[in-house]
């Protein structure tokens, strides 16, 4: 990449525009923490500049820079309609600096809630995957029950897992365990179905190859059928993961004492929309982060496909 391609980007101009806008006088009647917004923007710009120097692939860099560009535009408009010209109801639409401020003030509380949510997700998700994949392999492999199981799975996966919550509450001692249970169900069926369809779709020639190499039954299942159906399994996992986040945050809004959904619901009940928006954004970042890491894992394990 040439220096020009690396550093001469419209996003940097947008960054400067954003800074210039911050020089305008604040018309809002509440503290808008302009300096915090500026620090956040500068931090983002520094990350972009470091990435510009380090990232090797041109497309990935362009993507990152463009996203930052959008962010700067968004922040500029947001601060104009709130802090700078006070067009919007400050109660419902707090200035961006105020959100950054709230995040800094609440960071420990937010971290506790994020951790609680993530732990619940991980427990339910890992447990479901650990049961669904081997079970799907075994049942999909035995052709006779395989197709029957497909129909049963279709039935169970058609039930939106959220309706299990009341029954889960009756069944299990704590709300935490109910959350894990519901996430387990939300993940189990798609992963189970994905595994089975993966197994049923494995090319017969691959199985023949394993047979002529005298690969044992169990080894065939885990060393041949499993990798051959990995893509389908990941399809199920992705579905389970995204549904899990929806479910968990909904469940936390209903009855939990912590978690990201709880944070959002709790403060919106008090009309504290600054914290509500802060919570929404944090949830967005957490989900993006988890999805990103999961995709990395998937790409690594499926490297041989491309």
């Amino acid at each position, binding site marked *: 990449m040439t220096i020009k391609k690396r550093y001469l980007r419209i996003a940097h101009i947008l960054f400067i525009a954003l800074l210039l806008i911050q020089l305008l006088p604040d018309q809002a009647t509440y503290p808008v923490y302009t300096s915090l917004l500026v620090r956040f923007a500068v931090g983002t710009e520094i990350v972009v500049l470091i990435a510009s120097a380090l990232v090797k692939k041109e497309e990935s860099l362009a993507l990152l820079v463009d996203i930052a560009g959008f962010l700067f535009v968004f922040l500029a408009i947001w601060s104009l309609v709130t802090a700078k010209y006070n067009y919007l109801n400050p109660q419902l639409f707090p200035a961006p600096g105020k959100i950054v401020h709230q995040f800094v003030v609440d960071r420990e509380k937010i971290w506790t809630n994020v951790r609680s949510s993530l732990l619940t997700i991980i427990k339910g998700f890992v447990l479901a995957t650990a049961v669904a994949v081997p079970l799907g392999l075994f049942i999909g492999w035995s052709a006779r029950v395989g197709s029957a199981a497909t129909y049963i799975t279709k039935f169970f996966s058609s039930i939106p897992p959220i309706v299990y919550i009341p029954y889960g509450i009756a069944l299990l001692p704590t709300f935490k365990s109910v959350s894990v249970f519901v996430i387990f169900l939300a993940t189990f069926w798609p992963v189970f179905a994905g595994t089975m369809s993966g197994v049923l779709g494995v090319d017969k020639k*691959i199985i023949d190859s394993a*047979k002529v190499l005298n690969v044992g039954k169990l080894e065939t299942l885990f060393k041949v059928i499993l*990798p051959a159906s990995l893509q389908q399994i990941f399809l199920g996992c992705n579905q389970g993961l995204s549904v899990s986040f929806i479910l968990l945050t909904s469940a936390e809004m209903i009855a939990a004492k912590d978690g990201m959904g709880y944070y959002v619901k709790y403060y919106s009940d008090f009309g504290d929309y600054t914290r509500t928006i802060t919570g929404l954004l944090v949830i967005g970042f957490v989900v993006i982060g988890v999805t990103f890491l999961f995709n990395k894992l998937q790409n690594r394990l499926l490297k041989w496909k491309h």
Partner: protein
Amino acid sequence: MTTNKIEIKDLTVNYIENKRSFNALHDVSFGVADGEFVSVIGASGCGKSTLLSVLEGLYAPAGGTVQIDGKELRGTGTERGVVFQHYSLFPWMTTKKNIEFGIKQARKDVKRGDRSRIADEYLTKVGLDGFGSKYPSQLSGGMQQRAAIARALAMNTEILLMDEPFSAIDPKNRVILQELLLKLWEGDGSEPRKTVVFVTHDIDEAILLSDKIVVLTAHPGTVNEVVNVPFDRPRKRDELVRTDEYSKFRNRLLSLLYNDIAERIGGDEVVL
């Protein structure tokens, strides 16, 4: 009397498709001597691949016997190396790992540490030096088949079963691969040659490679004729194809293959 390495007697195979059973092979008998290269040719649907499936142990015959070294064949076994037309290699393993896996399965005496060295050795033999860390999807079809051959050879089996291994390869590379196989199989005389059963629909391929050609007739698959290939080894394609003997022999095989089809369809109007 010498016994054959592989002895097929009155082999009958029924195939079940859409709940209807049909006779894929009927009373097929022939033998393959130790160290002999035998090709099985025939029109598509004549059951040549089915025949190989039986030898691979993937398909059980309805009647007749297959003996290897005088023993009845039962199921699959790593004393037979197999190369398929597709998917001989596991796509999630690198080329080298595929070969190492084959060695692990077939040669229990080879220590774990030696597998890598043997795999490299065979990668070199088939001209895939430096491609060991590639996944099959990163290789061309021809290179994949080289790797599959490398694995089958690295398994050090006495018998090699090849099911149209070069049919999906473009003509130029097919010729190169045939010559590679010929060279590897003929060897330098230091080691005994492997017993090969090679299925193909390419007559020139069969002539170039084989000691003996089994011509199958379709519906049901029966042996039309077993023909000995009268050309000396080591063979050179360029020299071989220019001789009159080659053309004559080739025509004879063609007539064996196509007379049969013509008869079936009904005489003179058949243009092939």
